[in-house]
């Protein structure tokens, strides 16, 4: 039977403040384990947490960028549960008075955009990190992450396919990066995601039983886990079985979801107001100031790239997904005034290179001036398209400017006309059959001979020049032959 999937996403993003949410410990990924903690984040007796102003303002910034209503008053609550990564045995979070509610994020479906509702946005502290020993019955705890500011962004169940869920995540990540509140690095855990999914018949109004899926470490994992889970639930429903309301874990190795041991009363967190933190009244002037200072967001930049640089909707979409990529494009386009060429180089060879090497853009040394220079070298005929691709590969590999690579290698295009003539002549001598074909009017024969000529030049001849040269020589030859016949 056909079912409609109803999907919601819960995203946790670490705010890259200098210090933690309630104490002065550094927020510093990769620091020596247990070197960034203090009595406050370890929950030692008698300490007093104090809220980080930057985290507060960034939280409001994100809420406004997601078109959410910032509450007039917000407060923190204690969420109680036991887990070894939670030193206080409670997490300072927000329950009934969160930072913001009712936002939205617009995703671009296949051509048609769709507004995905955001249920709520709240601030909370992160927990420590656990590592599990493979040969001993112990787990290792690193408390550095305990107390790092997290913003939890909960969507409405407005997503109807894995593709929409994926687009929502990509767009949300882009917005967060544009706001410069987080690096959104999933490998480092600064962006994490849980999802829930239920199926229903398209005619149903009520929602089916909801399954929550955790342990999703990449956008790809979200996609795969949802695909798997939708199939699993459809199969159960087809068999007439009920779907259990439960939490499942994604096992990336085995590519399946597995039921988490159902913990009785797992949802009984016994929230109560955090007595150590007084309420926060959110001044409308502050909200207005933050609103006024919002940077250009991906959707706006997409529009601008289309109108200012005449890019297609698709090109604008790809180029604005990452802030750094959009900046590289724009700076280069301003330098060389050839936006379409810049877009092609970035979307083609650069993204292919990064994907092949599984690298982020900031992992390669690359200046807008270099790409502009490369485009210039193609324009003035120094490099053929093929050669430029080769040079670009070396630029990315070695992090040096194209001109240097052109100079040090023998990559310059052959400009010596004598040498080109010599190449053309040798091709004509070697392929009399093709020469004859050409004289009989087969245009393909010329292309074949040009190909042979380019091969001999090791790609260093200018293809247009080679074509012109060969055509001239072949035409002369044909005239001479036909002339002789008429004589």
């Amino acid at each position: 039977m056909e079912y409609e999937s109803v999907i919601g996403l819960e995203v946790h993003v670490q705010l890259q403040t200098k210090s933690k949410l309630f104490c002065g410990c550094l927020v510093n990924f990769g620091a020596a384990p247990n070197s960034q903690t203090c009595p406050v984040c370890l929950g030692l007796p008698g300490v007093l947490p104090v809220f980080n102003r930057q985290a507060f303002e960034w939280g409001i910034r994100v809420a406004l960028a997601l078109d959410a209503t910032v509450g007039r008053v917000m407060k923190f609550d204690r969420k109680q549960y036991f887990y070894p990564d939670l030193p206080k045995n409670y997490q300072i979070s927000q329950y009934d008075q969160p930072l913001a509610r009712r936002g939205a994020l617009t995703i671009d479906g296949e051509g048609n955009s769709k507004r995905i509702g955001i249920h709520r946005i709240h601030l909370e502290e992160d927990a420590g990190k656990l590592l599990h020993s493979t040969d001993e019955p112990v787990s290792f705890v690193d408390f550095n992450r305990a107390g790092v500011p997290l913003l939890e962004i909960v969507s409405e169940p407005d997503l109807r396919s894995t593709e929409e869920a994926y687009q929502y995540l990509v767009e949300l990540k882009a917005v967060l990066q544009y706001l410069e509140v987080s690096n959104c690095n999933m490998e480092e855990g600064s962006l994490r995601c849980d999802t829930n999914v239920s199926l229903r018949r398209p005619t149903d109004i009520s929602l089916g039983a909801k399954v929550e899926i955790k342990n999703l470490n990449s956008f790809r994992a979200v996609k795969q886990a949802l695909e798997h889970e939708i199939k699993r639930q459809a199969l159960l429903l087809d068999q007439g079985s009920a779907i259990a309301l439960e939490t499942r874990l994604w096992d990336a190795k085995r590519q399946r979801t597995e039921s988490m041991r159902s913990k009785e009363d797992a949802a009984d967190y016994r929230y109560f107001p955090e007595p150590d933190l007084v309420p926060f009244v959110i001044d409308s002037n502050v909200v207005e100031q933050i609103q006024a200072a919002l940077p250009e967001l991906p959707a706006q930049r997409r529009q601008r790239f289309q109108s200012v640089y005449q890019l297609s909707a698709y090109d604008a979409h790809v180029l604005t997904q990452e802030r750094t990529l959009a900046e590289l494009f724009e700076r280069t386009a301003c330098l060389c005034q050839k936006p379409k060429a810049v877009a092609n180089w970035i979307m083609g060879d650069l993204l292919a290179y990064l994907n092949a090497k599984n690298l982020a853009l900031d992992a390669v040394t690359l200046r807008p001036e270099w790409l502009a220079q490369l485009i210039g070298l193609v324009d003035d005929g120094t490099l053929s398209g093929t050669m430029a691709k080769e040079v670009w590969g070396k630029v990315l590999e070695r992090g040096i400017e194209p001109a240097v690579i052109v100079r040090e290698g023998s990559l310059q295009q052959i400009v010596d006309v004598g040498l080109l003539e010599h190449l053309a002549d040798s091709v004509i001598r070697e392929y009399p059959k093709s020469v004859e074909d050409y004289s009989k009017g087969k245009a393909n024969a010329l292309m074949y001979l040009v190909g042979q000529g380019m091969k001999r030049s090791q790609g260093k001849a200018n293809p247009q020049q080679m074509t012109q040269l060969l055509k001239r020589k072949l035409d002369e030859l044909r005239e001479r032959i036909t002339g002789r016949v008429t004589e």
Partner: protein
Amino acid sequence: MGVVNTETVKHVAALARLHLEGQALEQIAAQLDQILGYVQLLQKLPTDNVAPTSHVLALTNVLREDTPAASLSQDTVLTLAPERHPPFVTVPKVIETSS
């Protein structure tokens, strides 16, 4: 009053990882019932004109600037833990999987 019975105590004890059995359950249920029963007296107060509050202090917006401060040394932190395997604190193995 019957606010707290042994079932409630079992539930709360399980959440708090306390192991209570038999006699102790009865005893604590009775004691908690008395305490909470007494607090129930508050329900009799007229509160129609009192706004709900989570704090009694007339204080709001206590904030700090995002300025880093010194942390404890790794040695100190590890000494505080009951068990350690430097640079980590160790705990009995926890793995969130089924079977």
